[in-house]
């Protein structure tokens, strides 16, 4: 079974680019043919394997059952905040609980599209107008708390009831906001549950919204709803039905999970345990990876890729484009209010040079030019024939001259009405890639007579300033959603929607119209046309100078075979990863 878990985190429309995402292209390296050797090793080990290890493990009949075992040690940059998906906030937490408490549906990413498969559910069906989704659940999935209770329709309904309850403080409101508030989730019988949507929209998104990682009702209902965020199920243990079971959590040190031999939602994993070690410092993680004390970490910085490959012990896996960096122009500032001014700024910035300077190492480029907030990974929404603005400083100067910006005092900088074209470009602290890009942009804009002052702000302050439009220009980033909902970034602010994430104060009636229409369009082809038109308009308006999409590279020790991460999850298909018995490191 080649399925992946779609964590609730992936449903977040957009979030400041801090998290993890994946890709599926093996990055080669000098010994990228590890799988062949692995298979050979596996066969040898299998012939000498102990069949008693397989009996009762749930692995009977799986091709590498004789090689089952070993521990996968993964470095996390910070501790998990919760083991309860409905209140969990951090990527670190979701990496762990997605394996313990997986969503109701499994998903995969093929040919630029997300495909959903039944997981906890045996099957699903739609009514005629596509506003009702019915799951038929498997009847042999049991909660792993040894209560003997089966995962049933009431568990699902109760989880959605809790998410919608403001007392719970669940950040997963996207799962319930488009359900019928009067009757969101209906239990038809023990193993059949029906979701009632207010209207039909993108089918993948609807399936994702109905596929939340549910927790057991018989335990959840023991707690006061307001205290769920701090209860034992959130802070000390996890109960699920996934391929792994929770074992131990030492705060700020490590989290250990073990194979669940009774897993029915996914295949029983070959790897016996996964240990998540918390190592905040990147260089320390890298040293630990080199020494073999950890087997995997979030991502290797591009400058270190050649060195990591030179070790010979680690294979790199390239992840898809999920991270976008852009320059936001605050349109409430008179300098950037005119479209031609923003277009001129984009014309003046040499984006190719930025990509070449900060994302190209060892002859390989780890980024591509961006033109939208829609990731190019989603093939349906790509605008392949879009004409990107070239790097053309002369045209930029002409456009600015048309707006009255000329160097009248011969000081090398443009001015108008006695005021110099000068602004502060801010970015967040602790991101060398963005601060390097700022310097390059400063150089480019100086060439056309614009003075840029650079500033870095602490993370929370930076976001606060962006949302309050307390900045002039900002180099920021998004971790792009795979489920399009551009309303928060590009929708106009209204009396009821203040659009915290519309940092540029962008407002375009046609874009608003397209967003409203796109979010309620079920037909895939029609929806794609809507989003493509919207992307064209926004690119013409240039509220952002879209810089680049950045891929990132996940390292994994070569003894692990058949690792196939994809754009949805670092731990995609982890149940299929195996280590030849002769190469097992774990002794117990």
């Amino acid at each position, binding site marked *: 079974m080649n399925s992946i878990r779609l964590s609730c985190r992936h449903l977040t429309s957009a979030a400041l680019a801090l998290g993890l995402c994946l890709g599926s292209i093996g990055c080669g390296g000098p010994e990228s043919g590890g799988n062949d050797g692995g298979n050979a090793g596996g066969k040898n080990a299998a012939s000498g394997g102990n069949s008693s290890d397989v009996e009762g493990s749930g692995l009977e009949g799986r091709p590498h059952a004789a090689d089952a075992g070993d521990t996968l040690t993964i470095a996390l940059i910070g501790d998990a905040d919760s083991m309860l998906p409905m209140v969990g906030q951090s990527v670190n937490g979701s990496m762990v609980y997605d394996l313990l408490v997986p969503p109701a549906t499994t998903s995969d990413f093929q040919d630029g599209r997300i495909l959903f498969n039944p997981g906890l559910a045996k099957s699903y069906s739609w009514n005629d107008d596509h506003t009702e989704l019915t799951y038929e659940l498997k009847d042999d999935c049991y909660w792993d708390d040894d209560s003997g209770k089966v995962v049933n329709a009431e568990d699902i309904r109760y989880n959605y009831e809790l998410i919608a309850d403001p007392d719970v403080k669940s950040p997963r409101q996207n799962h319930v906001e488009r359900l019928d508030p009067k009757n969101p989730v209906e239990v038809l019988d023990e193993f059949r549950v029906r979701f009632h949507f207010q209207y039909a929209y993108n089918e993948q998104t609807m399936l994702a919204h109905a596929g939340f990682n549910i927790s057991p009702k018989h335990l959840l209902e023991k707690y006061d709803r307001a205290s769920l965020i701090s209860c034992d199920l959130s802070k000390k243990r996890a109960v699920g039905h996934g391929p792994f079971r929770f074992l131990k959590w030492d705060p700020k040190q490590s989290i250990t999970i*073990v194979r669940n031999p009774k897993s029915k939602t996914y295949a029983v994993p070959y790897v016996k345990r996964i240990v998540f070690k918390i190592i905040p410092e990147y260089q320390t993680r890298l040293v630990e990876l080199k020494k073999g004390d950890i087997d995997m970490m979030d991502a290797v910085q591009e400058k270190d890729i050649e060195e990591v490959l030179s070790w010979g012990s680690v294979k790199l896996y390239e992840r898809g484009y999920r991270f976008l960096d852009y320059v936001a122009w605050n349109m409430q500032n008179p300098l950037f209010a005119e479209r031609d001014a923003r277009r001129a700024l984009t014309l003046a910035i040499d984006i190719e040079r930025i990509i070449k300077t900060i994302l190209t190492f060892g002859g390989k480029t780890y980024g591509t030019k961006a033109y939208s907030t829609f990731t190019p990974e989603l093939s349906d929404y790509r605008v392949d024939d879009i004409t990107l603005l070239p790097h053309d400083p002369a045209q930029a100067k002409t456009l600015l001259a048309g707006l009255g910006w000329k160097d009248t005092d011969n000081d090398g900088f443009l001015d108008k009405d006695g005021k110099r074209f000068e602004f502060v470009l801010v970015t967040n602290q602790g991101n060398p890639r963005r601060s390097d890009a700022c310097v390059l942009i400063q150089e480019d804009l100086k060439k056309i007579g614009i003075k840029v002052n650079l500033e870095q702000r602490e993370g929370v302050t930076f976001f606060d*300033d962006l949302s309050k439009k307390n900045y002039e220009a900002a180099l920021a980033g998004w971790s792009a959603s795979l489920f399009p909902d551009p309303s928060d970034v590009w929708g106009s602010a209204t009396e009821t929607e203040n659009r915290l994430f519309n940092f540029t104060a962008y407002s375009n009636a046609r874009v608003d119209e397209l967003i409203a229409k796109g979010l309620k369009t079920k037909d895939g082809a029609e929806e794609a046309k809507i989003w493509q038109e919207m992307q064209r308009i926004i690119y013409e308006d240039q509220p952002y100078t879209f810089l680049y999409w950045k891929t990132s590279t996940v390292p994994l020790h070569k003894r692990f075979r058949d690792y196939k991460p994809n754009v949805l999850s670092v731990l995609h298909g982890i149940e299929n990863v195996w280590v030849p018995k002769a190469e097992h490191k774990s002794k117990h």
Partner: protein
Amino acid sequence: MFRYVVRRLLGAIPMVLLVALGLRALMALVPGDASALWINPDMPVDQIAKIRADFGLDQPWYVQFWRWFLNVLQGDLGMSLAQFKPVTQIIGDALPNTLLLSGASMLVIFVVGMTIGVISAIKQYSLTDNVLTVVSFFLYSMPGFWLALMLILVVSELWPSWPSSGMVGNEILDKVAAIEEAKLLGETTDVRIGVFEKWIDTAQHLVMPVIALGLASAASVARYTRSSVLEVVRQDYVRTARAKGVAERKVILRHVLRNALLPVITILGLMMPFLVSGAVLIEYVFGWPGMGQELVGSVTQRDTPLLVACAMLLSVMVILGNLAADLLYGFADPRIRHD
């Protein structure tokens, strides 16, 4: 002396509360608050407003302080707004680890610093003194963060099996997991972890952070000790002791060192809070699960209850450090009495 200690401790309470009050006021000036954790495009604005109201973040800072103060009077330091655990529990988990790291570092600082200082002083202007002086200045001028990274890089090349992060090695983690797994499945296991095995593992993990944290301070103590010993060694009573034929070793240890200790004790007392706050970067680099990581996290997440508690703890450390130094004066110099 007991009354003196009690008086000093009681006098410290208003100071600790003032620190808390000042910090609350400062945090009110900083943009953003703990509700930033919930701000994502899927979270309706009214729900974020409710969360802010539930946590009292919509109130003026002095109202928040007053509520917090009333809770503190009942022994409740509040709930972390980022971790949703009682602040006392978070500190209870982290503080022992930091104290272990700081305690071991203090030992290094004291032993290494004083030894180098005394040797430098009694061999003044010799090659040894010059070399130790240069090394001391070099270590003293090294940023702890850089020194820590260099240690990790160098030691991992020379001795790859030496642990470079965390508190527990993979071998112990493996055994713990095997034991816990057996418990979970209701099975028996012959896997055991010896007490010494665990201690040795922890001690190994402690070596690099202690060196990184302690070495620069040891260099500083060495300089203070050197100058203090040089001052004492010229005193008449030292000359008299030597004239009486007292062995040089005895002269140094009994007459010189004891009298040279007073300024060093002051420095060590002042170093106590620094060892907790100064461990911030060291804990981060080595993944040591202590107060430093909590302190940084509380600032970046605007977790005021945890931040205030950490700051109060640092204040208490300052007070205890000074008190300990004052009490140690009495032991070092019998002429000093605490009444």
